[in-house]
């Protein structure tokens, strides 16, 4: 009787520990993905806001604004300034599955804008974990 109760309590305790550990890990992963996505989005939107113009129609997974080029390569978002070495904007623990730019260039009939969409997930994510998709639109403010 005593042994049975002890075993039940131990099994329940172990299940609790496993659940807590899994949740903690999941929350950390989610936070990491959010921070990476937010940082990359802030870098891109800031570059567009500070640009003097949007000379070409944004299209595809690469955007060049002035001397800065943002692109998707090897599951990460990269920034290249003036053709120098690439800087990785997203954490190595985060996998970027989609980066797309669309919008319009500056013209005599329209103020240019850039619509940005990116999808990220943990590099170690299980298939059940939903990816994070960030979508926004930004224009130059100069």
């Amino acid at each position, binding site marked *: 009787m005593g042994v049975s*109760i002890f075993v039940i309590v131990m099994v329940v305790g172990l299940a609790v520990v496993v659940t807590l550990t899994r949740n903690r890990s999941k929350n950390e992963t989610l936070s990491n993905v959010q921070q990476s996505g937010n940082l990359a989005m802030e870098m891109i939107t800031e570059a567009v806001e500070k640009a003097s113009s949007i000379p070409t129609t944004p299209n595809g997974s690469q955007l060049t604004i002035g001397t800065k080029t943002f692109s998707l390569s090897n599951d990460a978002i990269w920034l290249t300034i003036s053709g120098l070495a690439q800087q990785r904007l997203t954490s190595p623990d985060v996998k970027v599955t989609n980066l797309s730019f669309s919008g319009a260039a500056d013209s005599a009939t329209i103020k240019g804008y850039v619509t940005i969409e990116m999808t990220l997930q943990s590099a170690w994510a299980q298939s059940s974990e939903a990816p994070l998709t960030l979508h926004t*639109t930004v224009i130059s403010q100069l």
Partner: protein
Amino acid sequence: MLKSSSQKNYSSFTLIEVVFAVGIILIFLGSLIAIFNVGTKNAVVSKHRLQAANLARGAVEIAREVRDTAKVRGVNWNQMDADCWLPGSLSGVINHPRNDCSGNRLGFSANPDTLTYNQVTFTRQVQIINLSGSDTKKITATVSWDDYGQSHSVTMVTYLTNY
């Protein structure tokens, strides 16, 4: 004189005491799980809040883009493109961002703007209110969505001036 082993008086827990103790332990463990589940739910809501904030910023930017396009064309923003933007007559009315205006422009319409990501649907609404005559407009973008049966929203406010 020594007592024999059979005469020793062992003190032990009664069944009621054991059941009571186990009950307390299970309640404690259950509470821990409940607290961490709340943490996990909050993490998911936080994720959706970040998505909503970006959508709201995009909606505000659309209003700014419309104003600046009016500037580029040299027209009054109150007479700008009747098919997509009539803030003068729509003041105070809830509008929805749209990207299907003529000439690849952005604008607003009366139809709901919904975006779905991973089975979560976000609805964007924009309210445009004229201030100081029609030279300043208050733009309020609200993005709403449901998580775990509860409604959530993110609101972003900005003021645009006809500079």
